[in-house]
């Protein structure tokens, strides 16, 4: 995965770069909006991390320009970094085409998690395969499978189970709310009840369990896909 980091503070930038490199990303770092614009015009990145507080051209302006058709990275997901007291910027940034934001200073594991989610969503939009841990959902061929011992084992899913699973995977690792799942299911059945959601969830649980994937209930909210064996930070 190739990332672009746009940050003018050397300390912050080198720290983030090191952290991302350690996590296995290839990171290009530029220190100004103008330079970033040049790079993004011709090169394609999997994601861009942009600090709002850049000298001259600020991060918001850069975010706006990335979305122009002539940019090679027009569809690159953007994570903006902002100061906590500038939440107005966040709203503006999201309006201008940023995909997520983080408040500076931040903890590296959270940045990595956000980045993973961002890349996952971006992939889901462009590729036909959704995945979480060993589970893969090939949306083009409507085939679900799980990796076990290097082999893909097919998982049989009913149409409503598929809808629920797809929604959970798009959201993972964030939880999916029960209300939203219900909405997704009304495409199949107008009279669906919250109890029905629970039925599909419990069926899915049974099917995912053997592959070390848990469907955890979040009390009062919904469900979340989790890997049973904790993968550390």
């Amino acid at each position: 995965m190739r990332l672009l980091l746009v940050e003018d503070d050397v300390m912050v930038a080198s720290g983030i770069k090191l952290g991302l490199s350690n996590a296995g990303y290839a990171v290009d770092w530029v220190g100004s909006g103008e330079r970033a614009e040049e790079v993004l015009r011709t090169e394609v990145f999997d994601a861009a991390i942009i600090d709002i507080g850049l000298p001259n051209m600020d991060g918001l302006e850069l975010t706006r320009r990335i979305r122009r058709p002539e940019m090679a990275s027009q569809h690159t997901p953007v994570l903006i970094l902002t100061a906590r007291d500038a939440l107005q910027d966040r709203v503006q940034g999201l309006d201008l085409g940023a995909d997520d934001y983080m408040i500076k200073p931040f903890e590296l594991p959270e940045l990595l998690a956000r980045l993973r989610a961002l890349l996952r969503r971006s992939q889901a939009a462009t590729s036909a395969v959704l995945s979480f841990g060993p589970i893969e959902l090939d949306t083009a061929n409507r085939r679900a499978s799980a990796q076990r011992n290097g082999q893909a084992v097919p998982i049989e899913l009913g149409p409503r189970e598929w809808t629920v699973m797809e929604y959970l995977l798009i959201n993972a690792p964030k939880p999916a709310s029960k209300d939203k799942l219900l909405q997704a299911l009304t495409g199949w059945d107008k009279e669906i009840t919250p109890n029905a959601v629970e039925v599909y969830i419990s069926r899915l649980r049974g099917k995912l369990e053997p592959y070390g994937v848990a469907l955890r209930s979040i009390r009062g909210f919904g469900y979340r896909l989790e890997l049973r064996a904790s993968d550390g930070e």
Partner: protein
Amino acid sequence: MKFFVSSFLPDAPASRAPRAGDLRGVTSGLRRRLLILLIAPLTVLAVINAWIEYRSADNVAAEQDQRLLSLVPLVADSVIGQSGERPLLMLAPPLEEFLKERSGSAAYAILDVDGKVLHGESWLQGLPPPDSTPETHSEEHEGATWRIVRQRQLTVLGEIVVAVADSSDPRQQWARSIFLRVLLPNLVLIAAAAFAVRWAVQRALKPLLSLKEAVERRSPRDLSAIDGAASPEEVRPLVDSLNRLFRMVDAQTESQRRFVADAAHQLRTPIAGLQAQVEAWAQAAGAAPREGSLALPTEQLYKLRSATRRTSQLANQLLALSRADARAIHATPEQRIDLKSLCEDALESHLDAATARGIDLGLDAVCVQVMGHEWLLRELLSNLVDNAVKYSDEGGTVTIRCGRRGSAPFLEVEDDGPGVAAAERPRILERFYRVQGTQGEGNGLGLAIAEEIARVHGSHLQLQAGAAGRGLKVTLSFTG
């Protein structure tokens, strides 16, 4: 893990209710002073009055003596002969009139030169005066004070002594009259003055008292000017000085707040750099040390990272606190906010932290909307959930709630952790206050920020024990 962090309310003591005793103190002090100032001269006047009366009573007494003395020759003239031992009398008309006028309180006697009574009241016997000058004295008889005049007189019987007595003592009458004429009017006057002063002081001080109440009623944060036009002219300079003081305090508070904000803001850039570096090191900890790098024990790196995270959180919270405190917040318009989606966001962003500690973080949210400042309420909820997750026991339960109680929407975070003793609860809202024996990373600002934000929304945080008396429940009720 023991509990709790945070918070503030530096002006809690200042927001006490106005003490009624103080108000009374002001009036009664003035009233007492005015009473003394008025009653002292009145009393002096009364004394002078009494003294003049006393002098006039002296005159009355002298007149009485004079009158008795004038009767003496009349008695002597009334002796016209002798029948046996006793003199024969024919009372002169003025004498007769005198005796008739004051029957019972007037008496006379004729004595011989040895003092023996020849005629009249026998109790008037006594040694006659040595020469012809009259002798006057007072004497008690049958419970009355008699004024007695004795004088030698020459009559047809030769030299006798005439005694005339009058018990209608003008000094006693004076005592009565001095009460009626002097003391009573003065007492009435003083009582009337006391009432008048009381009434007048209350009337006159009313604007001053309402000004005092207006000052005491206001919150310590309300440093706006008092309307001087409503006060009487004499009080206006006081109002002006108060307003000047308010302006100064306001400016000082504002510059202090700005300083904290600026300092926190400036601190964040280097801290962000420091944190980014330390986070990267900690992430790489345990991996084989690279060429030219210093291998640090993983344990120490994690400690370093934890300290850095705490420092950066502190800088962030200081900034948030000073922003929430800003007057500008009150000026920005409130928006309609869906509390349920706010709760859902808070749940999502704290889910990982809760999961890491084995805490069951859940939601109990009903759709409800309030008018408020969204990013502030987000900050408030985040602080409450952060606290609950941090200070609950591992494997505990934390619930984020919103809905309506009666007509009032509310936001609430409840945990079943060790809780906070009732006595300590108000203090955890103070800035930098941490519960004794608290472990963990809190800096004592989270609840202070939440309380500040609650205040911006015209409310305050209520702290209670959670269900079954365990843990802590923090509630923000919105008014209306």
